[in-house]
């Protein structure tokens, strides 16, 4: 299987592209530039994407290793009509965004957490975001955002799954 599913669409990387890191492939070949490059060594978390439901540092994994898998990037989080996923909405409403460079990675790590654990406490949220650096916010409003998103999705019975996967919407 030589296919990679990105935000619900299938791609067949060329032989040359197979050797690229997933981050470079997403940014340079698919022009999905919401996935950021902050350190290129898996230390800052700005390149985080969600692969088969789990967070992955896309700068430390090759395209080849991800063949046959389903990848969600920040661009896949919103719904097809352009409306935001509750996690994205909560980041806005909680004041969790300043420079915004960590935001895509933070949203993706939060998404992976809420897929796994729909009602995490603040300690669990902090642990899940430990791999994502933020130099602006001090993390508090990011934790607020994940808590808020979790509450809203449970109260309004909204699916956690990424917007690009919600075909019936």
């Amino acid at each position: 299987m030589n296919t990679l599913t990105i935000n619900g669409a299938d791609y067949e990387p060329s032989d040359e592209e197979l050797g690229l890191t997933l981050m470079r492939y997403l940014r340079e070949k698919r022009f999905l530039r919401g996935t950021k490059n902050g350190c290129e060594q898996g230390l800052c978390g700005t390149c985080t994407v969600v692969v088969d439901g789990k967070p992955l540092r896309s700068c430390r994994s090759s395209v080849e290793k991800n063949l046959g898998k389903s990848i969600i990037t920040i661009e896949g989080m919103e719904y097809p009509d352009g409306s935001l996923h509750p996690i994205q909405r909560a980041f806005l409403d909680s004041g969790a965004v300043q420079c915004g460079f960590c935001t895509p990675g933070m949203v993706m790590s939060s998404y992976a957490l809420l897929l796994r654990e729909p009602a995490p406490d603040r300690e669990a949220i902090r642990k899940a975001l430990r791999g994502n650096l933020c130099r602006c916010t001090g993390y508090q409003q990011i934790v607020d955002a994940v808590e808020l998103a979790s509450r809203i999705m449970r109260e309004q019975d909204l699916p956690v799954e990424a917007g690009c996967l919600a075909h019936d919407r």
Partner: protein
Amino acid sequence: MTAEKAFRNDGYAKVSGRAAYADDFSVAGMLHMVPVYAEYVSAKNLRVHTEAALASPGCVRVITAKDVPGRTHFGQIEKDYPIIAVDRVRSYGDVCALVLAETRDQALAAAALVRVEAEPLKPVLTVEEALNPYAPVVPGYGDTNIVVEHKLRKGDPDAAFAGCELILEEEFHTQTIEQAYLEPEAALCVPRHDGVIEVYGSMQHPFSTRRFSAALLGEPLSNIEVYTIAVGGGFGGKDDTAACVCARAALGARLTGRPVKMTYDRAWSFRESYKRHPYTLKYKVGVTSEGRVMAVKATMYADSGAYLSVSPWVTWRSTAQCFGPYSVDNVHADVYAVATNNIFNGAMRGFGAPQVNFAVESLMDMIAAELKIHPLGLRRINMVKQDSLTVTGQKLDKHVVSMEEVMNRVVHDIGYRKKYEQCSFGKAEGDELYGIGLAISYRGASLGAEGMDFCSCILNGQYDGSLLLETGIHENGQGSESAMILILAEALGCDQKRIRYRRPSTSNVPDSGTTVATRGTIMGGSAVMAAVAEFKALLSAHLAERLRCKPDEVNFHDDKIWGLNYEYSLSWEEAMRELYLQRVTPYAFGSFKAPDVSWDDTNGQGDAYFTFVYSCQAVELSVEKKTGKVKLLNIVAAHDIGKAINRAMLLGQIYGGITQAVGMALMEDFKLEEGKPVAHNFDGYILPRSTDLPPMTGIIVENHDPASLTGAKGIGEPAIELLAPAIANAVYNATGIRAKSLPIKLNPEDLA
């Protein structure tokens, strides 16, 4: 604390991944540029051999100093910083060639083939070495390594020491700190058909970027147009070096006629970019038995590194604020910046205050302990009050001096008095020692006597009732554009949806200085208010007749423009249409000049700043005896920022500043060995992570400031400048160990 809904004009773009930072832009035909480092810490007779690189596949050009049409060296104060090094290498961050190729991989491969030769010189690596009269002189522009010397002379400390009950002499050290913005430096420069080079850069000072670029190209400022794009953090760190990255890409674009992108990796960013100055601070303080500080002598040395950058300004703030928010009659301070061959040091959020506050607020608790006075009482006795004189002889009579109010708010909120009694002071039954600590500060708002301080704003009303707003303040991620929109919407009484912040360009809005020094809200907001006054006067003059009133009776609220007694009104759509029919352009330009300040270089006396922000932060922590590990439990901060504009963003600044201060207190240390950085990435340079922070509470105190046309001051830097000493004091109250250097490292043996 539950967050309130925040407003950000760039919020949707940033949460959706659409916000484009410098490296996210691509242009057809774009070349990639990478730097070549000189690989010496100090050397002369630099020779750069480019033949092999040029022959490498895809390599288009290798630029060295001989290709530079303008100045190879530039700087904000002294023009000593090599955009491209010539002959002499002064630091490990010096760049001597720029390689351009069709792809980044090709550029990297070619850059590895550039051969650099030079005759190494003995580097000067510490301030002590640099002060030795026989040490090599590092700067190219002078004959000494002492590159800055500020002094402050008030009263007669020597005479006053004689009458003191307690004289304390202490020395403190602070470390080198990397700003560690998450987006490394990057630039895309595009040559335009009319001869202008367009710059899309990750930088925090478009006008400085333009000056660096124009200087390197040897062209007028009008030939370079720098646009604001999303910037992944700056914290003071994206000026000189980030401007250089843009300037180099601009040169590449000029010399090849093609668009050029230059994107830094983390190792280059760490290696080349300036840091926060490490300080050595020596204090002698004389106190009466009642706790009144009678006399202070302070001597400070800041390592400027190889280039001057803004060292004179950083150390000036250390001078003007040399003894914290305390009123003392007899003060002598001597503050030096000293050149070495280390990576240079420049602006970082806090700018010469966090170092001084660490020493002063530690000293206050040390004095309290010696005299057995409560630390809060000692602060109360000495702190500035309404109409107090500062150490620079400035009378604080033009704004509300809220130092005591701010401290009381924190003390009350966190329950300081009771918790202080519960501190372990080195003795605990179990494995954990508990401590609470606090610090206070005041911070001169904006530049003060450091520089020319003015800002402008353009309001461009559209004939459909929408409004374009632009100011000379730059969006670094802090939310300045959103704050300006909120200020304008409130002042015009209109729906904020009418307002679009125009993407600023250096070819449109006039140079309004740097977005630094916590001056964005106070200066930019005041400029907006100045433009609003012009705009309202214009609209009133032309709409009064339609509104059946006199021009001075026209008013603006509820998204409409009104005459007297609510009888007649115009929607913004109608009002703008009316102006069109009268052939009047609904356009206003506003400019705000900071109130006068003064400074006498000979004695360091004067009205240093036109207003001050008052702050207090307290922290609770525990120390594990077995390991010496510090765990933060709770942090409360209060700041009198005049007036809140965007509450959630204000709190975000407070939490973020606190977190950077946690890094300063406990983790961050940018070590150099033989002038070379030890860390190349975030595995070697440790930043606070989500699990390192306790719950934080931000208390906003609002005494509207008459010097600001909105009443608002600012928060960026006050938030970072005082938690490190609060942590040091809490660590002492937990362990009985006084940390005099940062970051704080506790030995388990000392805790047994």
